[in-house]
């Protein structure tokens, strides 16, 4: 569905060249659900905008839905759907009018557009708002309308740029329900950008981590976490028995850092333990045998934030370091 080779975008800001995207190779197969994850300014939206022909690549190639973005941008646009960061509905327009016109822009006839609009209004709980002007809609309603606009022509490939930014958790869940249902019904290929790691984690089958204009990881969320981060193990032992397990825990961390913290006569150790759930019971037994029984234990599965930290040394939520 998507193939890019050395796709690059430079911006010139005050006579200085900023390399926003530095030669990325991306291949997305039909039916995939892929998230571009990265901090603000990482280049994920720029990449998306090149794929949707809203930006022209500086160099490299991109084929989207079988069409080269540089040769036939209008042809690409006819084959994809795009839901941008902003609200797509014109403020003074009525919801139904905008949806009908959107259908016409994509070459649908009036009958098909009307039927499709009714269908989408219903599935996005907008039926009662059809004749309302966009400016009178709440934030959540506007976002649902954006989705309706993006789906009017039933695209086989849908791009979403930060789809749930600024939405409350309930609306976010609602939005995802609609997207997932549509995907299940039509096998739509979906590419989205997000800086919400939990969103990328729970919704996407495949996560492409982008940082400083480069792809630094590309795999399923589960594998990224298992291979790069490991579970976070926090274990407490009595202060006097701590020396007996220090070496043991160091070996378990396999070269990773072991943090130590003493309080109220207890020493707590924190370390990353790959495949923690499987290895923890054996580790507890070894600690027992070493005369330092665990007083408490906490095992946390890794998040994509941990993956990002492992890859870049920075926290995803802190954003890009500029």
């Amino acid at each position, binding site marked *: 569905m998507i193939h890019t080779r050395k796709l690059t975008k430079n911006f010139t800001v005050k006579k200085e060249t900023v390399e926003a995207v530095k030669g990325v190779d991306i291949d997305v197969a039909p039916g995939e659900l892929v998230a571009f994850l990265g901090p603000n300014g990482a280049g994920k939206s720029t990449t998306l905008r090149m794929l949707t022909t809203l930006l022209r690549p500086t160099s490299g190639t991109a084929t989207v839905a079988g069409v080269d973005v540089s040769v036939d941008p*209008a042809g690409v646009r006819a084959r994809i759907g795009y839901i*941008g960061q902003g609200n797509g509905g014109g403020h003074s327009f009525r919801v139904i009018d905008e949806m009908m016109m959107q259908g016409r822009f994509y070459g649908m006839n009036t009958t098909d557009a009307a039927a499709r609009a009714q269908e989408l209004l219903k599935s996005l709980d907008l039926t009662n708002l059809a004749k309302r002007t966009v400016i009178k809609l709440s934030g959540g309603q506007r976002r649902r309308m*954006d989705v309706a606009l993006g789906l009017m022509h039933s695209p086989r490939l849908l791009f979403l740029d930060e789809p749930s930014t600024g939405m409350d958790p309930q609306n976010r869940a609602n939005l995802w329900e609609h997207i997932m249902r549509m995907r299940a019904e039509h096998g739509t290929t979906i590419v989205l950008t997000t800086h919400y790691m939990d969103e990328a984690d729970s919704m996407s089958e495949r996560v492409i981590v982008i940082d400083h204009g480069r792809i630094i990881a590309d795999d399923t969320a589960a594998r990224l976490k298992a291979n790069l981060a490991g579970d976070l193990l926090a274990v407490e032992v009595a202060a006097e028995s701590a020396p007996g397990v220090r070496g043991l825990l160091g070996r378990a961390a396999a070269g990773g850092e072991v943090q130590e913290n003493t309080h109220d006569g207890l020493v707590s150790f924190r370390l990353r333990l790959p495949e923690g759930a499987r290895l923890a019971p054996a580790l507890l037994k070894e600690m027992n045998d070493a005369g330092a029984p665990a007083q408490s234990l906490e095992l946390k599965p890794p998040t994509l934030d941990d993956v990002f930290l492992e890859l870049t040394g920075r926290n995803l939520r802190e954003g890009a370091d500029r």
Partner: protein
Amino acid sequence: MSVQDVRDVAKKPGLIQVLHDTRYVFWREMLLPLRDPFSLIFSLIQPLVFLGLFGPLLGSAVGAPAFGGQSTLQWFLPGVVVMIALFGTSMTGSNLQYELMTGSYERILATPLSRSSLMIGRALKEWAPLVVQGLLIALVCIPFGFVFYPLHVLFGLVILGIFGIGLGALSYALALVSQNKEWIFWGVQQTLLFPLMILSGIMLPIEAGPDWMKTASWFNPLTYLVNAERELFAGNIGSDTLLGLLAASVTAAVGLVVGIRAINRNIR
């Protein structure tokens, strides 16, 4: 194939495609006044007020000889029509500004619509009320001694439509380059509009002014447009009409080239 080569072979939309797309862009924009007819009513009243209040002053202040023997109304009415067209189509970009601030411009940019249709459709929407306005004020003026030549007037409105596409596209480009600095749009639009208007003899006959003003008016496309409208409203078709049509066509061509460059510059 290098990126440059690829760009050179990039597909251009055909004329049929542009006309097709323009229709939809125009219709979307027309929904605004149609859904809110009050704006239409006000737009009909404004030229009448102007004609009713400025016309009598003009007649007594300048005196009949400056109008080449025509009645003041016959001379002034075409000027008012050109003025409405000027104000209307130069506002094309201002309506775009709101859409640039939200995501709706981007949403439409992501549809397969051809780029020139985005500008032409919007410019024609600003021109469309003029057809109604122009015909209405002509009818209203008949009792006051205005002689109405419907076909000539309609042709005059078509010429204004062509001119409006060019001015609308320029206004569109201005809105794009002044994005996030909205005041620039208004500054440039107002600063250009009034000298252009005065130097075309819309409101007062340029013949009454000093020589340098007459010379300056030769370089103003609007002058030829106003002259063409005056000729047509007087029921004649001659060299002024041809020159006006030419000036309108050149404005349209320049406007579209500048406009499309502005759109493409935005995606660079």
